[in-house]
């Protein structure tokens, strides 16, 4: 489900005082979360083509499901790689502080470490019980361990990105692949496939290698519990399984009905909401 729009029908829009939106213009996907008086109301995700075009498509996709128009939204905060290119955003905030804010909102005040494993970068963020980021560590200059490396592996395997994680978990004994470089790891994977090694086996080796790379980043930053994984890769069960196993820690379980890839957009929406509250006379 790479492109979608959803609505929380339980939220009452009629008496809404503050309608706030967050848009996460990511490298792979653009996500929107709309809050009505602080309550998550509407969500969408579309593939990123250009930040501007995808931002409009993401917001239009979600607005068509509601009675809202863009001008009804009191505040829009943009975050993510393309945040500076969103014309309808009132403010921009980095994805680091949005991830912390969104994760604590969804998983609660016990969260101290957030792994945001996205399409083009992987970040480890520490935060307080109030969702304030205190420090972060960014992946080093290599695609190993980020979403794009898994996408290219899926292409190589001629499978959908959503399938390869489950497939990788089907085998227990498999070939180990290098984790130094995503390109080298893929080249090793290709060699194995040409040698008729079963795809599941190669997928397991590849996922384990990428998970090792991510785990190193988390370990370098210093893991503090509770630990939560967000971003697109949090939906890949093999990556989550091996990251947890490498770090010898269980991450907080996904929340029912919540897409963890939307957490950063939610954080941005929370910033938009608080901005409105501060501006309001009752503020």
């Amino acid at each position, binding site marked *: 489900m790479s492109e979608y729009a959803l609505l929380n029908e339980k939220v009452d829009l009629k008496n809404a005082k503050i309608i706030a939106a967050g848009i996460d213009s990511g490298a792979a996907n653009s996500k929107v979360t709309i809050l009505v008086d602080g309550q998550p109301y509407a969500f969408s995700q579309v593939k990123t083509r250009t930040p501007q075009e995808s931002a409009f498509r993401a917001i239009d996709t979600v607005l068509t499901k509601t009675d809202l128009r863009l001008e009804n939204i009191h505040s829009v905060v943009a975050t993510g*790689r393309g945040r*500076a290119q969103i014309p309808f955003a009132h403010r*921009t*905030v*980095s*994805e*680091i*502080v*949005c991830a912390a*804010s969104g994760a604590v*909102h969804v998983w609660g005040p016990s969260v101290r470490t957030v792994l945001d494993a996205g399409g083009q*970068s992987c970040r480890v963020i520490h935060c307080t019980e*109030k*969702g*304030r*980021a*205190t*420090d*972060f*560590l*960014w992946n*080093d*200059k290599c695609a190993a361990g980020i979403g794009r490396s898994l996408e290219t592996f899926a292409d190589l395997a001629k499978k959908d990105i959503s399938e390869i994680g489950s497939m990788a978990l089907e085998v227990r004994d498999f070939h180990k692949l290098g984790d130094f470089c995503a390109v080298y790891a893929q080249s090793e994977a290709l060699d194995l496939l040409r040698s008729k090694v079963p795809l599941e086996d190669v997928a397991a080796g590849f996922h384990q290698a990428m998970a090792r790379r991510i785990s190193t980043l988390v370990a370098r930053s210093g893991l503090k519990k509770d630990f939560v994984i967000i971003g697109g890769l949090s939906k890949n069960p093999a990556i989550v399984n091996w990251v947890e196993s490498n770090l010898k820690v269980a991450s907080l379980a996904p929340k029912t009905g919540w897409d963890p890839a939307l957490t950063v957009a939610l*954080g941005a929406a*929370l*910033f938009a*909401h*608080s901005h409105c509250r501060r501006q309001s006379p009752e503020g």
Partner: protein
Amino acid sequence: METKGSKAIIDRFRSITDNTHEYAKSLKAKGRLVAGYMCTHAPEEILYAAGIVPLRILSPHVSQATTRGYIHETYCSFSHDCAYQGLHHSYDYLDLIVTSSSCIHMGEAFNVWVRFAGFKEKSFLIPYPHIIHTKPASAFMTESFGQLKEFVEKLSQKAITNDDIEKAIKTYNHTRRLLKRLWAFLRHEKPPITGPEVAAVTLAAQVMDKEECNGMLEELITLLQTEPGEAPPGVRLMVSGGACDDLVVFDLMERLNYATNLIFIDSCTAARYFWFEVPEDMPNKLRALAEGYISKIPCPAKDNVPGTGEKKRFRFIQQFIEEFKPDGVVFLYQRFCSPQPMDIVALKPILDRLGIPYTELELDSTVPISQFTTQLEALVEIIEGVAA
């Protein structure tokens, strides 16, 4: 539009960093000999005493594959870029190249020039002790500097006298004092010059004839003393790390979504270049140079106090933090550099104790503007305690 006052002089400095080859060739046209150096542990004073203008070899910031057949892929892009300059014959006008046995990556770049770029007969590798904070280091360096002096005398066909070296020491110390005075402006709440401008001037100083440089620095400082600061006070950022001659990175630090001031750069292309002096009027001039270069803030590759694991550079970093009062630190280093990131591991707990947030930026041939911007803005948000 023609700039005036201090900005005009800063523009002249910046123009020299942007057009190093034209500047060097203009010196050659005046009959000067020009030597390239690849590491700031090379005693420029010996070259200057022989009438040679030392000029730091800098990188072109062009991502290219030419050097990968000559230097290992996992050597830093700065060393690859500098090696490329030799293979590309960008510096063919140089009369000599020197470096010290310090960073092994730059040592390989030097070897490329010597073996493949026609500098075999006009190159000198200055032997440096592996650890400089030892008793025998001074005598070792005095001897090494003596060998360099002999080599330069032969090349320039000119005997270098003690008076020549003393004069060079005083000229260079004067540059260092002037640069320190320039950097001191950044301690002000509203400095009349920005951090990126100071970085540009300091980089220019590394490729200039020091007498000309000193004249321009004096003029600049005099003007700055009379000019009020323009930039609004913002979050104070300090950089600590390795060689970075890409001024785009420093410009970026003051072009964020938030008000920021770059107030200090601890790197060999900035403060570590000049933050020391050579003792003046010592009878043994080479010994004076050895003592001066031992006293400088060392490159992490040379920095180890034997038997203690202590790093001398850390004391300076803490001193800079006390004097320049940064709100946050940006660790800036070349990808594949080992000594710098190893220092960062030990520096982080120090900053944690001081309550100073930090982030790491990994450099390559080019600057990833979008990613660096996000990291820097996130650092500022953490410093400011931004929360929803």
